[in-house]
């Protein structure tokens, strides 16, 4: 019990907890299956989903990363599981429908290869002795023997390697034992493994699958001075060059006292994290590019408007869009129209002319979209397509932010949400200290 507490407490700062990307039926000899869209089984008190048994194999670690609660120089209770304990726990939780699978990570015990070996043992046992066919996500340990990583890849659904910080410079400052190169090398290895496995599967249908749900990574936001444009560009590169399934952003939570870490008087930069996720979605599903959303001159997101509305306001020449004729890609770029409603519009307009009343029922958020669309050549109200006017209107219909939902932690947007301000203040503090 205590062990579970220590090791799940130590793992909780990891953000990725999705069980998606794999579709697998049970073969009738074991327990478990996997569902493409993933299943959340519960939600913790911070509103994040609990899908997998997210846990560390051990929280002992030879590294000393400044932002991490398990760093070597911290005096925290340490514990380790045995492979059998972990397997039994996973199975017992799974059959009660508590969880969707296992998310195994670990501190570095002795050296990366040894740690990866422990993870391999556990996953091998779970798959072969306990016949577990549910979802498994493991962290590949940077610097571990590539062959070992390859072997683990054939047993799991998803693998991830944390980029930790968006730039090499930030990494060397806060995680002196980790290097950009050792992080990107296994990422490339897994990518190549997935590609060659895809060819194999095309040839031999029953070939073993290699990381079928793809790989993901995560970055800490707000611990180092990178701006949103840099972060988003890194994410875009990861999607394009490394075929990542997801990049996760984790608002920096200050768990250690350290001179190198910024003080965040307003709590973790949740709004920034939220904006990054919104932009991430725009990259992956809406056909946007990082350089369309931000630029060197405007490197940070607007704290008042979501990135899509912000883009639309700066590109009013593209609007209004005619609902009954515009191509799907154009519809996607209208604020208030999402992937689903765009698809429904395209389907429904085949059989009849769409009017504003239909759009509302289809799921378009009209109070945002009205300024940007026409139905059969007419706008809903006669409004000027003019930046100031629309900006004011959009700001009036308040955006629903996930952390505004809670009355208890309601916060006004403050200066602290602006990165430049926080960073400026941070430098000031450092100057005062030194």
């Amino acid at each position, binding site marked *: *019990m205590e062990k*579970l*507490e220590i090791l*799940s*407490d130590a793992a*909780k*700062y990891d953000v990725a907890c999705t069980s998606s990307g794999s579709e697998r*039926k*049970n073969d*009738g*000899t*074991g*327990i*478990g*299956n996997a*569902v493409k869209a993933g*299943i*959340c*089984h*519960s*939600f*913790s*008190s*911070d*509103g*994040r*989903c*609990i899908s997998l*048994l*997210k846990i560390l194999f051990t929280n002992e670690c030879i590294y000393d990363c400044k932002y991490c609660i398990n760093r070597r120089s911290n005096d925290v209770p340490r514990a380790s599981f045995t492979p059998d304990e972990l397997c039994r*726990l996973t199975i*017992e*939780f799974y*059959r*009660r*429908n*508590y969880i969707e699978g296992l998310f195994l990570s670990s501190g570095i015990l002795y050296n990366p290869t040894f740690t990866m070996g422990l993870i391999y043992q556990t996953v091998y046992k779970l798959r072969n002795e306990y016949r577990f066919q*549910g979802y498994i996500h493991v962290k590949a340990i940077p610097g571990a023997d590539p062959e070992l990583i390859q072997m683990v890849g054939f047993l799991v659904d998803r693998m991830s390697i944390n980029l930790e910080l968006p730039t090499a410079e930030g990494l060397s400052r806060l995680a002196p034992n980790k290097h950009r190169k050792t992080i990107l090398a296994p990422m490339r290895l897994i990518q190549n493994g997935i590609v060659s496995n895809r060819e194999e599967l095309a040839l031999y249908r029953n070939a073993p699958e290699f990381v079928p749900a793809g790989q993901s990574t995560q970055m800490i936001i707000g611990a180092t001075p990178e701006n949103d444009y840099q972060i988003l560009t890194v994410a875009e590169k990861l999607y394009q060059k490394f075929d990542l399934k997801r990049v996760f952003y984790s*608002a920096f*939570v*200050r768990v250690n006292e350290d001179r190198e870490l910024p003080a965040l008087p307003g*709590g*973790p930069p*949740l709004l920034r994290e939220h904006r990054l996720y919104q932009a991430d979605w725009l990259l992956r599903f809406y056909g946007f590019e990082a350089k369309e959303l931000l630029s060197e001159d405007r490197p940070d997101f607007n704290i008042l408007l979501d990135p899509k509305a912000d883009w639309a306001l700066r590109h009013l020449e593209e609007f209004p869009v005619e609902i009954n004729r515009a191509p799907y890609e154009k519809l996607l770029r209208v604020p208030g129209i999402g992937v689903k409603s765009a698809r429904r519009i395209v*389907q*429904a307009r*085949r*059989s*009849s002319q*769409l009017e504003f009343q*239909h759009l509302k*029922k*289809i799921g378009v958020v009209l109070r945002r979209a009205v300024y940007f669309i026409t139905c059969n050549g007419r706008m809903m109200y006669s409004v000027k397509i003019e930046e100031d006017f629309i900006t004011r209107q959009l700001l009036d219909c308040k955006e629903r932010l*996930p*952390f505004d*939902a*809670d*009355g*208890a*932690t309601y916060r006004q947007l403050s200066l602290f949400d602006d990165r430049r301000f926080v960073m400026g203040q941070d430098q000031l503090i450092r100057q005062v200290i030194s």
Partner: protein
Amino acid sequence: MIQSILVCQNSMEGVLTAIYRVYEWKLNGPDTMIQIGEADLRLFANYYEVETVPPLAEKVASTVLKRFGEDTWEFICYALASEDPGKGQAVYRTIAEGLAGAIRGPLMHGLANDDIRKVFELSRHVHNEAHRMIEFLRFREVEGNILMARIEPDADVTALIMPHFADRFPLENFVIVDTRRRLAGIHSARKPWFVARYEKEKDAQVEGILGQYSENEQEMEELFKHFCKTLGVKERRNIKLQQQFLPLKYRPFMTEFT
């Protein structure tokens, strides 16, 4: 003009039989209505009582499958599992529009039509409910290595979620009990699943079985509760967001909230 109203039973077969009768009795038209169970009588209407006849329902089902495909059939099945009183009428009108050839392309894409959209919405509702049950249902091990789960969903989803669990746990004996509708989805290891109805007199007995614990059940429940508690990051605490994703009505039967 005198309206025709067909009154049928609240079940999938009931509604489908009524639809069959509409065509058999040549009542098809925009004023014809299918009503589920008793309701206020209207003055200018002819009422027809429809007895459920499974073979006739099957005929309608196979027509829908043949004419509109499996996807549309799935939408209709899910819509009919809801508790909405208007579901019969919406499904009837949707099928009628389809048979009349009023919709180009796949039937369920004609969302500009009010009835089709209603079926679409009902179906999506039930889909969400079923998915939430798959997420939030909790099994508890009782004596004899049997897993028991209790649910009280708004829509009749037991039969819709059984395939998921049967595929997931082929070697387990498990039972999902809908105590609101007195239904039990039963799966024995390596055998096909089925849904059984039980009578009101069995309520106490069912409650008794649901309240049992096996030997290490309590320990597992404690472990999971602790796990959920430790997982929340206190700097990000956000109870409203949690509630938005996990509404209170599902919590009474969930291990981590009891």
